[in-house]
């Protein structure tokens, strides 16, 4: 499935712990999670709202909103370089040039006081090394490539003059303007109309194919995962419950949470005998963490030891793309062995 599995990871996070502090609460948003993505590959990160998808992916880049104090441990490497020990200036350059980010709501993610086009041109000038003139041409062609009609006219528009779908296309163009190696799309379609969603996903897919860049797609949309993703990481309460190739995770899920998540998606698999059902219960309060498996309170298979020992993420199966699961109970019950 992974077209470039021979390539090493280009963005890689390991053993990440992120604590967030606001005047009222402190939360362990990410608790020893990790992921990696290789060039030419699309990694989907799925999980419920609040499971830490955004914080895990953008936190190491210093892209969490101001007003929250962030305590971050672990390792994060971009192109082999340690991100967490970088100087603020180097990190800024990395964010601008190496990574491109598409945010959830283009209406609020684009500055209402700034015209669209000049921002793209500036990115192209600063990070792709183009002259001012070339950069403007590049910006217009980026807008065109992102499927924006009449790009010369749109170049001089302010965000309020474009529709939501057009704005998300502009956001994509902005993310691509610096010619990044990793494109992070954080729920890029959640704020859009259903008809526009498919178009935006198709656009991301096309860009990924044409440019061979790494894409991290954060999403709730299992349908999008099945269409776009090479690999999937399932996040639950700040930990990775399961990860592996999209085929493995979607068709042969092991972790009870992954199974529940897929069962709650209507018509995801036609052989879904039980019909759709929501996972009962709510995620744990990440301000007061208990030891053991995070999913224990909602898990039908819970055993006493689940509550005392944190299940390790272990490799199952022997496929070329590692499939890892953090549930020894299911593995034992179904005779799945470790391939570590």
């Amino acid at each position, binding site marked *: 499935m992974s077209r470039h599995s021979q390539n090493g990871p280009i963005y890689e996070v390991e053993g990440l712990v992120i604590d967030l502090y606001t005047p009222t609460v402190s939360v362990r948003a990410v608790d020893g999670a990790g992921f990696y993505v290789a060039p030419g590959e699309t990694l989907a990160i799925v999980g419920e709202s609040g499971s830490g998808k955004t914080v895990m992916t953008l936190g190491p880049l210093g892209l969490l*909103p*101001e007003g929250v104090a962030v305590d971050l441990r672990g390792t994060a490497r971009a192109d082999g370089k340690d991100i967490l020990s970088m100087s*603020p200036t180097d990190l800024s350059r990395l*964010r601008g040039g190496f990574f491109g980010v598409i*945010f959830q709501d283009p209406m609020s*993610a684009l*500055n209402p006081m700034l015209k669209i086009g000049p921002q793209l041109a500036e990115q192209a000038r600063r990070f792709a090394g183009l002259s001012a003139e070339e950069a403007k041409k590049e910006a217009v062609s980026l807008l065109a490539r992102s499927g924006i009609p009449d790009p010369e006219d749109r170049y001089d528009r302010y965000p309020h*003059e474009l529709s939501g779908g057009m704005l998300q296309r502009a956001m994509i163009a902005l993310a691509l303007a610096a010619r990044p190696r990793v494109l992070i799309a954080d729920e890029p379609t959640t704020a859009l109309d259903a008809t526009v969603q498919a178009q935006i996903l198709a656009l991301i897919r096309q860009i990924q194919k044409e440019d061979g860049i790494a894409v991290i797609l954060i999403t709730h949309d299992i349908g999008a995962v099945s269409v776009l993703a090479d690999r999937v990481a399932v996040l639950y309460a700040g930990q990775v419950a399961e990860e592996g190739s999209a085929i493995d995770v979607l068709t042969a899920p092991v972790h009870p949470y992954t199974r529940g998540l897929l069962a709650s998606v209507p018509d995801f698999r036609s052989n879904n005998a039980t019909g759709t059902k929501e996972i009962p219960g709510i995620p744990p309060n990440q301000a007061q963490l208990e030891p053991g498996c995070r999913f224990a309170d909602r898990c039908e298979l819970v055993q006493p030891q689940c509550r005392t020992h944190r299940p390790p993420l272990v490799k199952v199966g022997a496929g070329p793309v590692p499939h890892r699961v953090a549930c020894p109970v299911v593995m034992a019950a179904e005779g799945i062995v470790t391939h570590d």
Partner: protein
Amino acid sequence: MQRMFMRRVGLALLLMLAATALTFWLVTAAPGNVAALIAERAAGAGADGEMIAKIADDLGLNDPLPVRYARWLGDALTGDFGVSLRTGKPMAEEFAERIPMTLALLAGGGVLALVLSLAMGIAGAASNGGIVDRVLHGLALVGASTPNFFFAAMLVIVFSVWLGMVPTFGVAGLTSWLLPWITIALFPASVLARVVRVNMQDTMSRPFATTGFAKGLTRSAVLLREALPNIAIPYMTTFGAQFTLMIIGAIVVERVFGLNGVGAFFIEAIRFRDFIGMQAILTLFVVFFVSINLLVDLLAMLADPRLRRPRKA
């Protein structure tokens, strides 16, 4: 946009009309009799009731209030604000002499407040909770709660009396303007610095600021290029309000520093029950208030692309 503009101008004119009518009514209702005052000036203690009545009749003071207001308004529109009861000079002449002085005070104070508040607010946001931020916050609090007459006295004692750097009274050259400008700018600069700081903080936690970081901008670049344009509108509105309030500050500051502006004249007018002078100065204040607010509203409209270029259907 154009209709909004016309509506705003129309509203401003109505406001001026209403405010001048109100002040006219208040000034004429105040204790004291214009005719008696004029008679006193003309004949000293020899003024009798008959003379007063005649003057009142000549001036039309016995006409109903609306008639008198209409007459006053008609004169005012031609630039005739009457003759000061105190100085005996036409108010138009007093204006010509004094308005430049007050304008210089307000303009210098306004520029100072603008520069100081932006510098303090941006430096505070750049420091973001650091020592600079906290010191500036403290300064702004002190600045906003120090009465200007007290502050002026402190400045005069230190810079004029102790250090002899600037004259204590009157204007002679640019340095003599420094203390009045600083005094009148103190309060608005402090308030506006907080406005900048608080709005900066709010703006920096908005999603588009995160986009700014994602574009590879350093924090100071995000502050200046992404956040600052977004605080322009609340800043302009508050600046307008603070700038108009500076005319009240001017009354005190002109007295303390011996500047012959309209503020100083106003105090004298009240002391001498110069109703003509009072009404003229109050009219000037109203015009100043309304036109500055109008100007600021229009500038804010122009600064906001959402208003300047409303979305096409």
